[in-house]
């Protein structure tokens, strides 16, 4: 087996809110180009882990590092500058803007020009803007939303908004993408399309970490699965192993038996 380069490293991360221990002794890595899924029953701490990794929460203990750089204490936009981009489960878009404009905002990292240049309309700024517009159009086509390009993002269906959220994240040119419950609100065929999309994204060299509840989807798309319960990791491994792990099955008992 080839040894992969490590992209994201989560070491001994813990976080408590007053008396509540939301995460404890979290240890896992994500290799470059891997697709790893974080699963677990409701309240297991998945979104909390996401928030810690992307800088929206500060851990009480432990370190998060990406490609060797420690991310602790960095603000979310600084973490984004390292190529770590996340999506949101709720409020995943800029609702009052068109889908096209949503992508234009997502392209922020690509469009950095000086303020004066932008205001005076100097050539460098104009070229940059043209490039951004081109990129937005390309992304729209690639992700299949061109028909809805000029509709306000807030008017799209829940599932379509998830898709816009992913497109937004892609616009930011991530080297690692963190997807927070990306298929919630999607029907079976939309979910299938999304699995294809995830594979396409990985094919372009993007490492992916996702949080999900949809078991069939997780089983079919992941290289590895990390299972959380009560803030701790209870199992880790490829889908076949996780499927049959007794600890995992027990964690989900009462939430409905696991089937895939």
């Amino acid at each position, binding site marked *: 087996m080839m040894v992969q380069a490590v992209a994201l490293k989560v070491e001994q991360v813990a976080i408590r809110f007053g008396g509540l221990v939301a995460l404890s002794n979290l240890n896992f890595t994500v290799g470059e180009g891997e697709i790893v899924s974080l699963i677990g029953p409701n309240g297991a701490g998945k979104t909390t882990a996401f928030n810690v990794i992307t800088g929206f929460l500060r851990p009480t203990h432990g370190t998060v590092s990406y490609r060797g750089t420690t991310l602790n204490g960095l603000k979310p936009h600084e973490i*984004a500058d390292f190529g770590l981009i996340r999506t949101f489960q709720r409020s995943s878009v*800029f609702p*009052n803007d068109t889908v096209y404009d949503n992508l234009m*905002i997502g392209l*922020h990292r690509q469009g950095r020009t000086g303020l004066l240049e932008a205001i005076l309309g100097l050539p460098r700024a104009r070229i940059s803007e043209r490039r951004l517009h081109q990129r937005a159009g390309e992304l729209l086509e690639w992700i299949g939303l061109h028909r809805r390009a000029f509709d306000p993002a807030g008017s799209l269906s829940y599932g379509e908004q998830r898709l816009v959220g992913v497109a937004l994240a892609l616009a930011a040119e991530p080297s690692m993408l963190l997807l927070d419950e990306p298929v919630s609100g999607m029907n079976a065929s939309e979910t299938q399309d999304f699995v294809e999309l995830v594979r396409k994204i990985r094919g372009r060299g993007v490492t992916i970490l996702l949080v999900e509840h949809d078991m069939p989807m997780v089983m079919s798309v992941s290289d590895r699965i990390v299972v959380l319960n009560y803030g701790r990791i209870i199992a880790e491994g490829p889908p076949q192993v996780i499927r049959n792990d007794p600890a995992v099955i027990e964690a989900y008992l009462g939430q409905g038996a696991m089937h895939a």
Partner: protein
Amino acid sequence: MRSGITILTVAAFASIPLWLRDPYLMNALITTGIFIIAAMSLNLLLGFTGQLSLGHVAFFGIGAYVSALTSLGFDVPLPGDLRIVHDPWPPIAGFALAVVIAGLCGYFVGRLSFRVRGAYFVIVTISFAEVVRLVALNWVELTQGPLALNNISSIALRLPGFGELVLRTKLQNYYLVLAVAVAAYALISRLVKSHFGRAMRGLMENEALATSVGIDVTRTLTLAAVVSAAIAGAAGSLYAHYIRIIDPEVFAFINTVTMVIMVISGGKGSLAGPVVGGLIFGLMPVFLRPIMTPEAQWIAYGGLLIVILFVLPRGIVPSLMQRFAKRRQEVRAVRSVAFSKSSAEEHA
């Protein structure tokens, strides 16, 4: 289409002095124009960045005082037997300095205030303005306090080859204000349509999402604050050199409220909103003066603000544009129905 309307409007405004002779109305137009510039700058923060800064009059007043003091000169004792003496500079330098210093204040207020959000931010900005007012009132050695700074000179433009043109008449001041207003409008328009404008908009709509794609909240908000404050300072400078006498009342909260009413009624987040709202509320006193006392007018303004917020919460300009957009959609829909009906009849 849009820029056509803009050019026509500017031309219309430029032509007004050619047929309007009433000096009282001209004066109203000039002061309204100055307030519109200030309102546009407030709109940048309020409408395009989503921050309700209710201390905006502080930047206006700081601009006015800086410009006035620069052109009047001052001699101020400091603790420890020190004095600051400044000889009068030409008013145009006062204008430049007003813009710079107001912008600088915008930077500091921005960095401090944006640590908090929402209602707390509103309160901090109000407090800042009141502290500035109290300083202007009490630091008498510098500002003359309530006795006011007077005899401020008018702005003079020195054109190489043409000599010096002192802008004393109403006509000249009108065009000066119009020129600055157009420049401010253009600046804000370009800013809003640029890369930075998109960042501001993203922050306003969904701050968490915006930061996750790399938008630096503090930097963006501070930038908006600096530009906004600088433009307000410019308006203040124009005010000082036109009215030629300023006192701490320029910092009164009621002036912020006036600007806010102009922006909200016209439509925050639209470029033309403050202009429309400004014209309405700036010129209303002129028409109401013969029939209402000032107190009654203010009751009317308060009432009008409430009515507008209930009936046209997005403001006049956006509501009108929505109306037109709907009309266009309806026309298109009717046309397409008519078309399909007639082609169905053809095939029947």
